[in-house]
């Protein structure tokens, strides 16, 4: 890049920034908001008022619409991959093939590492769950708008920042673990899962808490106009990316660990009987000399 072009680009960027700043200042006060900060926060947690109509059948939380949207996007991506990419897979993978193979291989490795037996369905489940959590969390970055029943517009949140979505995910994972336990270990597997009765609660609320807190922090930051300049790069993108990765990893790891635990074949314990035998022998040994005397 020559000196002249560099100077030109610097000038252009400065002009753009100045125009933007001037616009922000000249536009004056932001429009009065439909709800106060506390109302926004409360609604983000409880979804009292901001409901979205689901095809006119039922008023649902925006999180559910996000969930459907995520399914649509991911499903479309999968179908396009199946039709256009996977038939052209090569022995030596290209970049995109390597990307797909890495994701599949990552979850397969996680499943194999934590659950040595019957991990085929487990790896498929954690693959779907991991992709869902990751894409769902990243989905809030796009900020697609929907119109609520009250007529206000709301940006679609992460599906799992809705408590119903989080509970669904947690309970589904728990039931999946239980089914795995029953299929591999019968009644023992069932009991092993029941023993971890707090698991669905902890999994649900971990997801809910993590994603909701992210949404709340973002909401707080965006509420004040002067904070909306450099900070969203950190708070919005980086935090969202981080907890998307972390939550996807944590849930899949937990599911595979517990699945591995309950589906592991329990070995019979021959030690106790051996000890008893030894005890009997020692008793006999102690008795016989006396008898012989």
């Amino acid at each position: 890049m020559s000196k002249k072009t560099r100077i030109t680009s610097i000038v252009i960027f400065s002009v753009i920034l100045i125009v933007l700043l001037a616009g922000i200042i000249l536009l004056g006060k932001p429009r009065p908001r439909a709800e106060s900060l506390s109302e926004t926060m409360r609604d983000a947690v409880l979804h009292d008022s901001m409901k979205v109509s689901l095809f006119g059948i039922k008023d649902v939380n925006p999180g559910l619409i996000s969930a459907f949207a995520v399914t649509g996007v991911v499903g479309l991506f999968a179908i396009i991959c199946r039709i256009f990419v996977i038939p052209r897979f090569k022995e030596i993978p290209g970049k995109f093939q390597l990307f797909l193979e890495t994701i599949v291989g990552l979850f397969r490795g996680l499943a194999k590492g934590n659950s040595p037996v019957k991990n085929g369905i487990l790896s498929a489940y954690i693959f779907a769950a991991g992709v869902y959590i990751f894409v769902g969390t990243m989905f809030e970055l796009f900020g697609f708008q929907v119109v609520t029943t009250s007529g206000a517009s709301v940006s679609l949140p992460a599906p799992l920042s809705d408590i119903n979505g989080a509970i669904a995910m947690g309970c589904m994972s728990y039931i999946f673990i239980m089914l795995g336990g029953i299929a591999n270990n019968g009644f023992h597997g069932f009991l092993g899962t029941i023993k971890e009765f707090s698991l669905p609660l902890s999994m649900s609320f971990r997801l809910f808490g993590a994603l909701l807190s992210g949404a709340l922090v973002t909401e707080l930051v965006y509420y004040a106009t002067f904070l909306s300049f450099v900070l969203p790069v950190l708070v919005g993108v980086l935090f969202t990316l981080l907890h998307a990765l972390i939550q996807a990893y944590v849930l899949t790891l937990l599911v595979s660990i517990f699945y591995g635990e309950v589906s592991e074949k329990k070995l019979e314990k021959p030690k106790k009987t051996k000890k008893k035998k030894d005890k009997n022998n020692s008793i006999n040994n102690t008795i016989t000399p006396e008898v012989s005397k």
Partner: protein
Amino acid sequence: MNVPLNIDWQQILLHVFNFTILFCILYFFLYKPVKDFMEKREAEYKKQHDDAEQALEDAQKTKEEYESKIAGAEDEISAMKSEAGTKNAEERTRMIEQAKAEAASIVEAAKKRGEMEHDKIVAEAQREIADIVTTATEKIVLSADVSKSYDEFLKSAEGNMKNE
């Protein structure tokens, strides 16, 4: 029913329904084909690896076979050598013994011949002495000159001695 936190069972079920659809789509359209492809490739490479391993093992076996054969041949050669050496030594000792025996027999024969020769010479000498004595006696007797004849006897005896 008023559930705290606005938990709605219907929406939970809707979420589950949504995830089930997502799971099916992901499983059949993305996960399974990619996994199958990876497994196929893995199996192919494993087969190649196994084949290579098998070939290597075969080569190793053949090599060991040949090595053992070569080692056997060397042993055989050394055994033959040592056998030949012992045979040679035996032959040599035998020949030496034979030569010794022959030499001994030759010496014995020579000794015998020498003795026989000696005896023969002695006998001849005795016979000649007797002849000389007889001739001398005859001459003496015939000449009757004693001193002369004595001298002649001595001379003839001396002559005979010198001749011998």
